[in-house]
């Protein structure tokens, strides 16, 4: 993937192994400043591992075995733990699915928001507190000075997610990674958080990587989309193109399984045969071929990445036969 001037994050040929199994295989993607890239896929597709690897947060057994990860032009693979600690919370930050579990239960939330400022900017406590309260107000926490003195258990799930977002943003990172940021929240609270993330992109200009399995959230928030299956990107492109002209059989089937708000009710929905194979038990060649209605002998070889439109690519031998799926 050619790197454009305003590309903030560029991942090329990333491979992540667990016990010799390539769980993530040859992932390349780029995110520009002021844009939101959604990585979408089902459990076990490698989307979270890909995101965690950027900040060197892979779980113990997993390691990056190939590829490069550049943040603002700087190579992150191979950095020492101390060097990575300088990047985390400063240049790049991450928010997780379970806001309550991700906060320290014994620390006042205000202290957790200001922590990054103390670590990276060497501010005094008073100055850091002032900034923390300002950013808490900005992410929509009412009465932030009082809230700052409270503990996570005193706040609702939506409020805790705002605290996470506030602490992630306080050093104005150029990259924000959001790993299923609204999955644990109720839908009216999800709508608030999605709206907040949209404003962050527009006002702060962060590059945002959004990890999700929810096609509605993708449609709502993303500018660009990477669809992952079996540790590989099967399709990538601008959000409108992905939804209007899905060009990989998996994307096409996945979108077809979701009940539409204007579709016929109580009718049989489209299904995808079989199940997601466990990591490492993928077939040779195209990893979707055992569930794909278009599969033939060609699919036993790893499929080429085919350009199907402007910045729109699909990894499939049969992009010209999609109509056959109807």
């Amino acid at each position: 993937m050619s790197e454009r001037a305003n590309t903030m994050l560029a991942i090329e040929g990333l491979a992540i192994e667990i016990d010799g199994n390539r769980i993530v295989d040859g992932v390349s993607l780029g995110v520009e400043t002021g844009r939101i890239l959604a990585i979408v896929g089902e459990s076990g597709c490698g989307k979270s591992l890909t995101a965690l690897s950027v900040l060197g947060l892979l779980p113990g057994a997993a390691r990056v075995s190939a590829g490069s990860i550049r943040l603002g032009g700087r190579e992150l693979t191979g950095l020492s733990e101390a060097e990575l600690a300088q990047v985390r919370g400063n240049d790049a930050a991450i928010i997780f699915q379970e806001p309550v579990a991700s906060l320290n239960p014994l620390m006042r939330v205000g202290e957790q928001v200001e922590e990054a400022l103390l670590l990276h900017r060497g501010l005094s406590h008073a100055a850091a507190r002032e900034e923390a309260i300002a950013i808490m107000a900005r992410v929509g926490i009412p009465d932030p000075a009082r809230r700052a003195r409270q503990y996570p258990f005193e706040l609702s799930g939506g409020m805790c997610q705002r605290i996470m977002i506030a602490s992630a943003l306080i050093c104005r990172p150029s990259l924000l990674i959001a790993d299923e940021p609204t999955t644990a929240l109720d839908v009216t609270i999800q709508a608030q958080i999605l709206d907040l993330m949209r404003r962050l992109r527009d006002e702060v200009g962060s590059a945002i990587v959004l990890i999700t399995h929810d096609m509605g959230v993708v449609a709502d928030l993303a500018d660009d989309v990477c669809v992952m299956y079996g540790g590989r990107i099967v399709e990538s492109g601008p959000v409108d193109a992905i939804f209007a002209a899905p060009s990989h059989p998996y994307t096409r089937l996945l979108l077809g399984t979701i009940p539409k708000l204007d579709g016929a009710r109580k009718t049989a929905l489209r299904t995808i045969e079989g199940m997601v194979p466990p990591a490492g038990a993928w077939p040779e060649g195209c990893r979707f071929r055992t569930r794909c209605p278009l599969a033939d002998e060609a699919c036993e070889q790893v499929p080429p990445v085919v350009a199907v439109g402007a910045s729109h690519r699909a990894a499939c031998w049969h992009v010209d036969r999609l109509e056959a799926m109807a």
Partner: protein
Amino acid sequence: MSEPLLQVRDLKVHFPLRRGIGTPGGVVKAVDGVSFNLQPGRTLALVGESGCGKSTTAYAVVGLERATSGTIRFDGRDITALEGRERAALAQDIQIVFQDPSSALDPKMTIADSICEPLAIAGRSRADRKARVAELLDRVGLPAALAERLPSALSGGQRQRVVIARALALSPRLLVLDEPVSALDVSIRSQVLNLLLELQRDLGLSYLFISHDLSVVRHIADEAMVLYLGTVAEQGPVDAIFERPQHPYTKALLSAIPLPDPRAQRHREKIILSGDLPSPLSPPVGCPFVTRCPERIAVCAEERFPLAAGDTGTEAACVHVGRQLIG
């Protein structure tokens, strides 16, 4: 209209809280005056956000929670306060399927034994049980070869099919489905939803369907009831609820579901509610939704309005709906 299979009248489930460190005591009114009918062969969806009382309502129906007041009738019979043997006998007619199939199956029991358990409790013979297991596996679309496997050998979607097979073992008439597809992968959900639709069509089952996923609700349910803080905000036929919602909460809830269509989603009017749900320990005095309602007027903070028929086929508990009829 035929006799409802399930009839719930003014159901209340209150939980008194013991006074203690950090808890000032009080009563959580988890369900506070819910009424509905479920007709044979139909699906009623209970929708709403956490703490709205949808699961508690369903648990009261299956006897997992005790009603504080109100009545629950099944097939005309008052089952509100049934206990012991009588309550257990009701398992022949009412069964429940939970969200997470992994924790709903005993990891050390074979699939066949799990499905057999209700039959064994009901005193069916061994030969009978064996035949029934084969029949049930086939019914839910699982290969017979899985009978002697353990749950760990199955995928999430297969496990949920096993849980459904077990719930069907005694040929119940009512299934309570508590978020039955929420824990499943997206590509598996439609398989299980199709199975539920097929079972309803073939066996004439009634479903009480709990879900926070409104696109699933619209697809599978005939009627929907929107709950907020233990009370009914709006109820009616699914089409009317989705196309012409009357209650401001229903409108906000629907507008909050992101549509899987970026162009439509961009041009859609979104109602973003401010604030969180109020604490169930101290709900607002007037309308439960008053603290977040974009359409509130002064009277809403003082008075709670009962359900009233609007002109779109739903009933809503809102000052703006149907008042002219009452005057």
